[in-house]
């Protein structure tokens, strides 16, 4: 019973914060709300017996990527979105196809959620206590990562190197040596 309460709390926090992220006009607030959403997701990962993924989410997403976003927002002094422009370009205020297309998309999302909820073969509880220790073991994770998935691991490290060089190059000012 407390598990279900915690799940609904964390889910509500994640959904609420994400909905506010796309609804905020001030980008600083968006970034902070997204950090709250990541925190909620981290709690959900802990409920799924994945403590390493939960901590990695905080370290990588909330602790590094969001700091990067925050720095960029502060550096660019990103202006708040103009209220008039927001009203002008909001899809529900456009005539014709855009408005009805958006409403149809919303309807499709509701249908998707209902259909997923009705799939009874997915109603088994996701966490069985018997293999909780093997799934949350960091040793097993490391072993699997470095034996079965070595190639992907090495490829990812090259990807990060390329991204780092690319980002440093692209953000440089023109004319600097």
């Amino acid at each position, binding site marked *: 019973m407390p598990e*279900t309460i915690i*799940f609904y709390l964390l889910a509500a926090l994640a*959904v609420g914060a*994400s*909905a506010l*992220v*796309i609804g*905020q006009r001030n*980008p600083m607030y*968006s*970034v902070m709300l*997204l950090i709250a*959403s*990541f925190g909620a*997701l981290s709690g*959900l990962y802990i409920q*799924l*017996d*994945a403590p*390493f*993924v939960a901590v*990695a*989410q905080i370290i*990588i*997403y909330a602790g590094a*990527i969001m700091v990067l*976003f925050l720095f*960029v*927002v502060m*550096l*660019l002094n*990103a*202006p708040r979105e103009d209220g008039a*422009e*927001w009203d002008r*370009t*909001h*899809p529900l205020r456009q005539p014709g196809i855009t408005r009805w297309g958006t409403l149809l998309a919303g309807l499709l999302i509701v249908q998707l959620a209902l259909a*997923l*909820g009705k*799939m009874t073969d*997915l109603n*088994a*509880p*996701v*966490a069985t206590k018997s293999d909780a220790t*093997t*799934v949350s073991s960091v040793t*097993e*994770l490391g072993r*699997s*990562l470095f034996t079965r998935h070595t190639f992907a691991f090495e490829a*990812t490290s090259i*990807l*990060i190197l390329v*991204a780092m060089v690319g*980002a*440093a190059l*692209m*953000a440089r000012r023109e004319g600097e040596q």
Partner: protein
Amino acid sequence: MIPLSHYLVLSAILFSIGTAGVFMRRNLITILLSIEIMLNAVNLTFVAFGRAAGDLDGQIITFFVMTVAAAEAAVGLALVIALFRHKESLNPDAFTTLKW
């Protein structure tokens, strides 16, 4: 005990919110943030299915998704900075030079 379908529905809702953000927002940084929401929703699906199958593969894929998201955020933000320096605007509708 929480059924698997609950996690999947939550992930679907988060993904839809992210997609809606990408379409609706007229600010480059918020579009990138919505992409991060989508990637997180996908991570949640992976971990939930991995747990249901009693396997570690779901968690392993999550690392790669997180790493790719970090690389993409870095490069995307560098692009945003370069664009902002050019035009002093973060509105994607301002960059229409290549339109016919």
